[in-house]
């Protein structure tokens, strides 16, 4: 590696939830795409400020629930009414009434797993991310509010973006450089 550090983006700190909500609207209006707001808790109204669409997670979970129900009922049907039939308590081989609890449980199990892992997948989490190169980012999980704009963004220009953040009233701003 050369001595020239690669600039990966810019991160700016804002004072409080009100400020960051305001600033987020400005960043959106400036036309940036590869940017995000980092806060210790979800800030109310931020999705609108950022112009975010609703999460598709609901549909994924609905599909998973349906799959779970089909798998659950199918499994019980196959095991009890096809593969090895046993007469128990005079009940039908395919006793849908009695199969309800397990079917329900599997529907829930599939949905829960999808909700959690779907969420993690959609979040595109990774252990190495430009924002972690900031010197003050660890405060984002404590009490600080940041906006980061990544270098991948077409409108990104290190100096102009720095300037832009200063204009919209950040408390602090720094370049994200690979270490």
């Amino acid at each position, binding site marked *: 590696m050369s001595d020239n550090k690669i600039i990966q983006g810019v991160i700016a700190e804002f004072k*409080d*939830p*009100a400020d960051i909500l305001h600033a987020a609207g400005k960043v959106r209006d400036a036309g940036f795409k590869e940017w*995000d*707001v*980092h*806060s*210790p*808790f*979800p*800030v*109310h*109204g*931020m*999705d609108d400020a950022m112009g*975010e669409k*609703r*999460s598709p*997670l*609901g549909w994924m*979970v609905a599909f998973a629930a349906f799959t779970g129900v089909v798998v659950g009922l199918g*499994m019980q049907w196959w*095991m*009890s009414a096809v593969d*090895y039939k*046993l007469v*128990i*308590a005079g*009940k039908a081989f395919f*006793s849908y009434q009695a*199969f309800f*609890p*397990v079917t*329900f*449980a*599997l529907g*829930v*199990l599939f*949905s*829960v*797993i999808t*909700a*959690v892992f*779907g*969420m*993690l997948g*959609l*979040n595109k*989490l990774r*252990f*190495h*991310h430009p*924002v*972690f190169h900031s010197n003050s980012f*660890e405060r*984002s*999980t*404590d*009490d600080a509010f940041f906006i*980061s704009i990544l270098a991948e963004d077409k409108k990104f220009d290190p100096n102009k973006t720095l300037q832009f953040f200063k204009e919209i009233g950040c408390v602090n701003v720094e370049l994200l450089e690979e270490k």
Partner: protein
Amino acid sequence: MSVTAENTGLVIEDIPLVKGDPDFHKITTDICRISEKPITKTPRWWWIAFIISGMLAMNLLIMIGYLAWEGVGVWGVNIPVGWGWAIVNFVFWVGIGHAGTLISAILFLFRQKWRTSINRFAEAMTICAVICAGVFPGIHVGRIWVAYFMFPVPNQMSIWPNFRSPLLWDIFAVGTYFTASALFWYTGMIPDLATYRDRAKSKIKKVVFGILSLGWRGGNRQWKHYEVAYLLLAGISTPLVLSVHSVVSTDFATSIVPGWHTTIFPPYFVAGAIFSGFAMVMTLAILARKVLPALQNYITIDTLERMAKIMMVTGMMVGYAYSTEFFIAWYSGNMYERFAFINRAFGPYWWAYWTMVSCNVIIPQLFWIRKLRRTIPVLFALSIFTNIGMWFERFVIVMSLHADYLPSSWDYYKPTWVDAWTFIGSFGLFLTLFLLFIRFLPVMAMSEVKGVLPRANPHFHHNMPPAHKGEA
């Protein structure tokens, strides 16, 4: 914080969710400090508690080993009481395990913000309790080495398990419940684990919490999915919570044993589970406030009072079920039903029945008095009474077996020392796990508590005076 009605000038004070109006940073430090202490500085009370409960947990293992070696003859079960303390303890622990998810899921859906200071804690308790519960179905099958047959795995004859049996429903319901609670708990913890990661000084902690927090960076593009996931988990877990104890109730209610077979069992068990779960959360919360004074600003007396109210309501639901059951037993005109209930109240186990009624229905009536709801020693005592009463409720139900249809086989069930030590040992397991949790993991959902503070509202400083807009 308060809200005002213009016309009448009536001012309703909103109860603050946390005391002392802490800022975000104070919340972080208050909670992180609890577990950031180096091992050498672990408080003495923790070691004492941990060693005692660890020994009891070992004792549980020994009892299980002894049971496996000798067979179920070491228990007090007999004919007709083929189901003794093992099932009582199973239902007891699963019941306790309902509070956590109830607080995280149902109270979330009902927008009860006060839940944020206790939900983490209650969820951890849930998981510990469900683990304890899981022990009992595993060992009460008698031949432990064939316990795998509870899962959908064919046995040596290629026979599949019987899906028409409530015991199998239990496995799926409790298994799903454990998975869902654990995932819910973990999901809620990710942002807090990221806080731990960011505050970690030592290399090991950095790596461990770094991995556990999965690279969380608190971006709104993550919070967006996260919040929806949380809502979905809450939405899915709510029917799950109701279904689990309903399924547990079918262990009894699908049978044709008088006193067991009654249609109100599913909702009645659910109410009882919530009741007992809240009692256990109350017990642990009061103890935790004592040993971790930092929590006192978060688990306030108002939080405890609200929990007391929920206990009062669920206690009365249980009372409603007791009385409906009793009435219908008479109304049914069925001799066996009538006998079962009269025998419960006045038969050989009358003492258990009246312990149950006093602890679950009569004593909680003290909660009507506001002063008592706000007196910690009283709350603690009442939560203990409820714990006891709810254990007895299950005992009373199971003991319906002692007088079955064939009077010549009626028998009185007495537990043995193995029964007793297994039960005590399960408390050891429960507390061991719970102590590990409060020592190493965030005991309170920091990000959630921060999110419900008035200052977290973006409109807090602007537009309106804070007195009007707070707590929105």
